[in-house]
């Protein structure tokens, strides 16, 4: 069965997997413009630029290399990433360059520490299939 689910897939940053991922979301937006002439019955819509972003939540682990690299980009880096990959399966992935836009570290009583992040695509998105 080719239906995918959470037991396959993950996100990598510059080739390093971020560990302990609890959820990940890839959003591809396509803007549109309304070019309807006055008095016309049906709207005329044209496609404008596309954009993409990735957000996610991970359980914090001080020994995790992917999360450590990610943290460094926010603390002392320029927040840019030449390749962020969103794997839908072990092999199929969306990827592109991005800039990290948010890093939130949360502690709460009775809970494991969590980090949420968002990344905004700065280039076109590519979809690679090898499955």
């Amino acid at each position, binding site marked *: 069965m080719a239906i995918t689910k*959470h037991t396959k897939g993950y996100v990598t940053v510059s080739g390093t*997997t971020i560990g302990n*991922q*609890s*959820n*990940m979301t890839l959003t591809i937006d396509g803007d549109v413009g309304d070019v309807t002439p006055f008095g016309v019955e049906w709207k005329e819509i044209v496609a404008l630029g596309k954009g993409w972003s990735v957000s996610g939540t991970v*359980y914090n682990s001080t020994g995790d290399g992917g999360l450590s690299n990610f943290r460094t980009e926010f603390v002392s880096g320029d927040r840019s990433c030449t390749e962020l990959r969103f794997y839908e399966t072990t092999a199929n992935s969306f990827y592109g360059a991005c800039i990290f836009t948010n890093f939130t570290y949360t502690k709460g009583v009775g809970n*494991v520490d969590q980090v949420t992040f968002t990344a905004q695509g700065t280039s076109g998105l590519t979809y690679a299939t090898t499955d």
Partner: protein
Amino acid sequence: MDSVIRTLDGVPHLRYVSEKFQTYDEVPAKHLPCAFPIDTNEELEPYTIGDAALIHGKLTILITCYVFSETGDVRQQRTELIQEITRYLLTDTLLGSLILDIEPRSIQTDQGMIENYSLFNMEFEIDYVYTRTDGG
């Protein structure tokens, strides 16, 4: 659970620790104070995504303890034993390395109904994770 029992074995004021439950009148005097730990209900939920997805388990363990005093002065013994068991379980390094967390959840006593004895249950919740395909 093995690690919990090993930790309880190190509690100085416990003379006897066993998974084989006994009622208070079955326990020889030389074994008091004693503790009978057992794992009870466990809640499981998917924890992470990916090929090596983890499962999060919340295991409730119940420790039944008996304290005895010929003079009936069991309150102090009971309090000290509760503190000692809690301190050992929450600070044991090996147990801590196997789990995410252990927290006390409740204590129920016999409310002084049995002369010269204090019977009480301590409930702890253990959080841990394991690789989904390993089965726990």
